[in-house]
């Protein structure tokens, strides 16, 4: 795992699923990934959690994946990078996207449902693996600081323009900037 001071944390889990559930996920993953408006609705809610940097779900059925030996049961491989503590991360999934969790995990072995929180946490943590090596290009960043920084980059151009218009214009522009963007700083 990353060092404790680092704000980006990794999580890797493998969830065994019934073979009949594989067919549902083979249909629903592409729908949720690519087909409007399903993708928009699905991703908006998850991204609204604002602590997921990257998250990927894949289906492992054979090793090697192409032409290899079949695994006894299929697995959903999930790996993600997030900010904050893991319990809050798992609880947020349970509370905010409970219906999406059911749509994804209802056909997994031993799925207790997203609530109550205790059994779901245990189910989730039992399937987690310790990362042996993890690296992030911006380990101290949070999703909020990255997104805020992108918005502030646009504003920086406006501030530079105001600075070319003299002291009073810049001071007024700076005040407006603080009013609009103080929470992003």
């Amino acid at each position, binding site marked *: 795992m990353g060092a404790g001071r680092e704000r980006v944390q990794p999580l890797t889990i493998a969830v065994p699923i019934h073979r009949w559930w594989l067919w549902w996920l083979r249909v629903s993953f592409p729908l949720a990934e690519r087909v409007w408006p399903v993708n928009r609705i699905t991703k908006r809610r998850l991204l609204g959690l604002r602590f997921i940097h990257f998250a990927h779900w894949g289906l492992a059925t054979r090793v090697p994946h192409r032409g290899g030996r079949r695994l006894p049961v299929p697995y959903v491989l999930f790996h993600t990078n997030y900010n904050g503590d893991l319990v809050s991360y798992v609880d947020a999934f349970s509370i905010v996207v409970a219906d999406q969790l059911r749509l994804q995990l209802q056909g997994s072995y031993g799925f207790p449902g997203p609530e109550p929180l205790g059994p779901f946490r245990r189910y989730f943590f039992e399937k987690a693996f310790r990362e*042996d090596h993890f690296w992030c290009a911006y380990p101290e960043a949070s999703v909020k600081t990255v997104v805020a920084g992108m918005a502030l980059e646009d504003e920086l151009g406006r501030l530079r323009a105001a*600075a070319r218009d003299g002291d009073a214009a810049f001071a007024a522009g700076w005040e407006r900037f603080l009013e609009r963007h103080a929470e992003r700083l």
Partner: protein
Amino acid sequence: MTWLLPVAGDVAALRARIAALPAGDASPFAAIPGAHVGRLVVLDGLADPRGGPPSGPLLLVAVDADGTAAGATAAVAGRLGEVLAHCEGYPAAGDGADVDRWLRRHRVRDGFSLRPYPDATVEEVRRALDVRARLAAFAVQADGLTPAQLRAAFVEAFGR
């Protein structure tokens, strides 16, 4: 991108090899152009919930990088060879193209992904973070300055 590779032989040797990798800026993932994050996870065994023996051991390699899948695959092959050599079928005697082909066979395609800043390159992310940090520092410095001092300080910090 994600790869799932069967481990050949001694898992402890693989773990020791991974543990010896440098962290931070010296990590092999740091040398992959455009990489945002990378991980190596040794899966001792994927449990069979029906009571059968676990599948494994396996090595999961994952990287999020800008650019093409082919570019990321080639970079992983080039930077992580000493780790990948602990996996079944690794073409130790082959050239880069052989390793690429071997990795492609082991790739588990992402079915669904989340990226809160999907089009941003790693350099754009770093620049955005830098801009935010500098503006935050400037906001503290700017408190109480006259308009002339404020503008002069801004120009000095950020240019025109």
